[in-house]
């Protein structure tokens, strides 16, 4: 890889919400970087902070959220968290785009889909109505929606889930962003449609030279689309590495547990699965020690008392576990 500065550099990102139950540390001191054209998978369950982390980078919060956001998010050298709303709005959509999980609620139900794609072009690129509509049709073709001329005027409800997700992708790539954030884009879709959408994302990434941040709970999806993986738990980054490293030499107990969870379709039959005891908990209030300690079968006293830092176990492979090196050595 060239020594180009990273496209995205996140330093000590902390997102806290003030809720009825107290302070929720949704993202707790997360740091990572992303190179141009790199695809990173962000894996975790509910409460891991994977979605909030991505949305925090763009300050995409709900109107009723009471948020405290600290840290730095350098995108091509500029700290996004220091920008004004107007400047940030310009970056959203043109430089960084987001595809959400549920296309049904993300699309305007009363506006023709072609319009929704063109809207972004008119607003950000200042294209005329005609030019924007033409480009929108081209984009629909690009994402695999047959007969774009006719379907331009259709409403979202006239499309299937997979098609709607393609429309979302078309809107997202309309201004050719440098980074595409996909938040569980295929979770709500059937598995056969999922393949198509993922293949589309892979193809577009190559053609447009985009970086991708794929947020998912499914390691299979991440393995098929990404170059590197970040595993999150309780708002913290617990392991980070290339897909190859993480899948062949998973280090953090949570990562290994996740990999063992998925029942396999071939090979030996498992009548009993290997669950992780307890439930994923969101981090309310102060908490000492490793977030995963209570569910970890290898936990010791130290784990409950002290927060483990990220240990480097090999090139481009970090694990936040007190026993990271031991585990790596014995693997």
């Amino acid at each position, binding site marked *: 890889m060239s020594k180009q500065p990273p496209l995205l550099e996140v330093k000590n990102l902390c997102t806290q919400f003030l809720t009825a139950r107290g302070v929720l540390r949704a993202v707790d001191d997360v740091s990572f970087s992303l190179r141009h054209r790199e695809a990173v998978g962000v894996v975790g*369950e*509910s409460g891991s902070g994977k979605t909030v982390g991505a949305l925090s980078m763009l300050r995409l919060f709900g109107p009723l959220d009471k948020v405290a956001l600290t840290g730095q998010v350098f995108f091509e050298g500029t700290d996004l968290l220091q920008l004004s709303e107007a400047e940030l709005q310009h970056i959203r959509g043109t430089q960084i785009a987001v595809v959400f999980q549920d296309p049904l609620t993300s699309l305007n139900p009363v506006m023709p889909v072609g319009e929704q794609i063109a809207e972004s072009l008119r607003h950000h690129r200042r294209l005329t109505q005609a030019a924007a509509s033409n480009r929108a049709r081209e984009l629909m073709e690009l994402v695999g929606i047959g007969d774009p001329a006719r379907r331009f005027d259709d409403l979202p409800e006239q499309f*299937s*889930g*997979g*098609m709607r997700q393609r429309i979302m992708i078309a809107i997202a790539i309309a201004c050719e962003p440098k980074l595409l954030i996909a938040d569980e884009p295929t979770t709500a879709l*059937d*598995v*056969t*449609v*999922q*393949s*198509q959408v*993922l*293949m589309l994302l*892979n193809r577009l990434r190559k053609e447009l030279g985009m970086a991708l941040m794929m947020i998912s*709970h*499914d*390691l*299979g*999806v*991440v*393995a*098929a*689309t990404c170059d590197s993986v970040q595993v999150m738990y309780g708002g913290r980054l617990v392991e980070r590495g290339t*897909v*190859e490293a993480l*899948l*062949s030499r998973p280090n953090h107990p949570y990562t290994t*547990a*996740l*990999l063992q*969870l*998925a*029942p*396999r*379709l*071939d090979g030996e*039959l*498992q*009548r*009993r*699965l*290997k*669950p*992780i*005891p307890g*439930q*994923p908990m969101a981090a309310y209030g102060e908490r000492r020690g490793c977030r995963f300690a209570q569910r970890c079968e290898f936990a010791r006293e130290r784990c409950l008392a002290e927060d483990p830092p990220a240990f480097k176990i090999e090139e481009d492979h970090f694990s936040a576990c007190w026993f990271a090196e031991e585990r790596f050595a014995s693997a």
Partner: protein
Amino acid sequence: MAESAKPKMTERLPLIAATKETPEPLLTVEALEVRYTLRENRTLTAVNKVSFRLYPGETLGLVGESGCGKSSLGRAILQLTRPAAGKVWFLGKDLTELSGAALRSMRRHMQIVFQDPRGALNPRWKVGRIVEEPLRAHRLARRDERRKLAKEMLLQVGLEESYMDQRPAKMSGGQQQRVGIARALVTRPKLVVCDEPVSSLDVSIQAQIVNLLQDLKETMEVAYLFITHNLGVVRSLSDRVAVMYLGEFVETAPSERLFARPLHPYTRGLLVSVLRPDLAARRQLDATERFMAGDVPSLLNPPRGCRYHPRCPYVQERCRAESPHLENADREGGEHWVACHFWREIPAFDHEARP
């Protein structure tokens, strides 16, 4: 009650027999049809003449994607939606003929676990009352006894006694689903329809609930109709698996058989589409291309002939014209039914899915 007539058997109904030696089926579904009327008097046939048998203590996994009709089938069997045609023989009675108190009394033996654990529990009720409700409805015990049975049931699903007085809103999804399971099993039913019971839960919790269902199946000798789109989970839990597409069964087989030797192209497509968390995933993804061109067609306008033919990589002329029936593909006398004209000719399934 007069002895119910034996279920009528015709040549055209695909009958799936037992993998065990038990003679009497617990549940026999015959040519079941479920239809919904939409606006402008259009009808949608969600389930199109499905037949099968389920034996006591057996788990039949029902897999398919959205719109295939599996949930409708589950609900229609329990008469939560009334089928438009067909028969459902359960414990010697035809449920489609029953209503009112007669049907209600059968419900004691057949229960359901829903996909949405939160929605399935009345938010104002305490857990104890929720679990006791079926006992009350069927007048199975007096108040103290009911409470005791409910407590025992909660313990069996892994919840402590203290949960009896809690409200569901404070509980996690996994815990709520345990309550749902406790409620379903408290009357010791013979059949439980599990309608996507783990789909809305986190993956680590899914495994817990699947194990729980497995344990309960053994201790309580209950048969499950396990409806899901998650193939991995189905493999662990089921004795037999039925694959559904656009309202029809396309393949059924003992679980291990289906995964080792899937015959129907749709089944293969499904298996190939489940991405494995390993280094072959990207190759696997590329391989799926040939299997699933296009989207799932709408049930309003199912394709003529074989319903799968527009997406099938092996499609021939005959497939466009003629709808295939389920036939037994097992030469050794076992039970592996597939609805495909060319299952013999299609090359064997390659698990590595090399293109």
